[in-house]
């Protein structure tokens, strides 16, 4: 049986829907959030007004982006009570569900960079340019330094995240050029270049969710047959290895890296159902269930012969 591509085996085993469950959920979430904001302008039904920087839901619930508010505070602003309530709510939410849930479940740019990643896999596009994954933290520092020096929120003049969301809700202007730039950058220049290496918004939310509760757990890691699909599909593939392959070193099965976006693609593409959503305190499955463990190993042993055939 020849393998057609990343996740092909999972589709065969689990069915297309189950192999795309989290991907579809994320797209519904991303588009749904945009739709809530657009319902007012397009349909005249005002549920949420504003944008991701700051919004008001049903005229009672304020939500404010902590990254942009922090920049404003550094520029010398004293925020209002509503803004502080909004920031507290947002930070509490992401501290619970994982900071970079913002990236994979909310941010509209994710759809652009996911498309670039998909095309890279599809057409085998490789690029040699390397930007360190730690660059984003430097850029994050820059977004805080610039308001200190200039007294103005400089990052928001360029920020593709807010620009794309605002563009869709309020009018795009020429912001599509920046979005196209991000797409081309990710497609040809650097793998996962924007979200995985440069974007300070993602870096900020990484820090917010550094100790978050909801995490992906490789709690059936003994079932792993080394197909590498999860590594291929993961936008932050470096986060998987310790949890998936760390059993021998005594590392737990929880993906603890704050760079994990909780996108759940690894859960989708794994034919052996190694991963699931759990908490940072989740334990490995199969501690007492030896039969399942041995079954998994058997399956793994069958694998090479199946591939050779």
């Amino acid at each position, binding site marked *: 049986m020849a393998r057609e591509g990343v996740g092909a085996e999972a589709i065969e085993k689990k069915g297309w829907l189950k192999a795309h469950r989290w991907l579809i959920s994320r797209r519904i979430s991303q588009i749904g959030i945009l739709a809530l904001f657009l319902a007012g302008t397009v349909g005249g039904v005002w549920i949420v007004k504003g944008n991701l920087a700051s919004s008001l839901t049903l005229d009672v619930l304020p939500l404010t982006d902590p990254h942009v508010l922090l920049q404003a505070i550094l520029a010398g602003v004293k925020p209002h009570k509503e803004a502080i309530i909004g920031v507290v709510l947002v930070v509490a939410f992401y501290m619970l569900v994982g900071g970079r849930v913002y990236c994979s479940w909310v941010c509209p740019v994710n759809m652009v960079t996911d498309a670039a990643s998909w095309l890279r896999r599809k057409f085998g596009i490789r690029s040699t340019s390397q930007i360190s994954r730690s660059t984003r933290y430097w850029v994050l520092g820059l977004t805080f330094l610039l308001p200190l020096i200039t007294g103005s929120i400089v990052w928001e003049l360029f920020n593709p995240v807010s620009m794309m969301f605002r563009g869709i809700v*309020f009018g795009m202007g020429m912001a599509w050029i920046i979005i196209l730039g991000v797409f081309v950058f990710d497609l040809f220049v650097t793998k996962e270049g924007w979200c995985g290496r440069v974007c300070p918004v993602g870096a900020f939310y990484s820090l917010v969710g550094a100790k978050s509760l909801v995490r992906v757990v490789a709690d059936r890691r003994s079932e792993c047959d080394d197909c590498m699909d999860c590594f291929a599909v993961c936008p932050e593939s470096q986060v998987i290895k310790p949890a998936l392959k760390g059993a021998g070193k005594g590392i737990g099965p929880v993906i603890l890296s704050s760079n994990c976006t909780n996108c759940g693609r690894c859960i989708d593409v794994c034919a052996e159902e190694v991963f699931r959503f759990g908490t940072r305190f989740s334990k490995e499955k199969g501690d007492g269930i030896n039969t399942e463990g041995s079954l998994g190993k058997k399956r793994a042993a069958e694998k090479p012969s199946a591939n050779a055939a």
Partner: protein
Amino acid sequence: MTISKTQRKQTDVNRRQFLGTVFKTAAGVGLMGMGLGLYAKQSSKLPPQAIRPPGALPEDEFLGACIRCGLCVRDCPYEILKLGQLGDQVPTGTPYFTARTGPCEMCEDIPCIPNCPTNALDHALKDINKARMGLAVLIDHETCIAYLGLRCEVCFNICPIRGKAITLEYHHNKRSGKHALFLPIVHSDACTGCGLCEKACILEEAAIKVFPIHLAKGELGHHYRVGWKEKEKAGRSLVTPDIKHRYNLPEGVRYDLQGEGLIIEPKGGQEELPMSSNPLDTLNKGLENK
């Protein structure tokens, strides 16, 4: 010994690699920062026809405070506010309106302000008449039809602070010699810069326009004191003692300083002579009656 040497070499290489990566990243991000900073400086100039909503902080403070959420845009019942888009001259994501197409209607409750999360629109502003979004300027006297001698007064009549922000001054029409000019005059102590006058101006291109105050308004030298105001404040002249000025005028002629000007008094308190000193007048007199 040899092992420790290779080990040391190994760590040296690692350290070098590490420092190299750090340096490269720092340099790249530094360049990015400089680019962004320059871009920010370039794009911090608001075009004169873009007017900020009521209560907006001074422009440089505003750019540090506005988080570009667009809540003010949504809360404006007349939907006049827009957010700057990339490619506009207005800094991206910041709110503005254009007086000629959509002026501020000066709602009494100023609904655009309360939801502003950062005080970029100052919550302390409670009275819309105290807003200073800009200042109307009658910028072109050559096309304003009031200056051409026609009755217009549209800007005067549409002004929400009618009779205070714009008043009419009556002047003699020198061209026709028999008409009046009703000239609109803007007063900065009352004008909020709402732009209703600019919207209403009947010309193809408005002769009265709203500009940001720093463009519209002059500023006296700070040392400058206007004499008559100081005099009023003090209740007396501060420079020279208030003595009656004496003119060296011919006899029978005096000068009224704040009234009629030059006055020629009849000589010796008598009535003027019944006949003119000019003989021609006498000659022509008969012709008039004919």
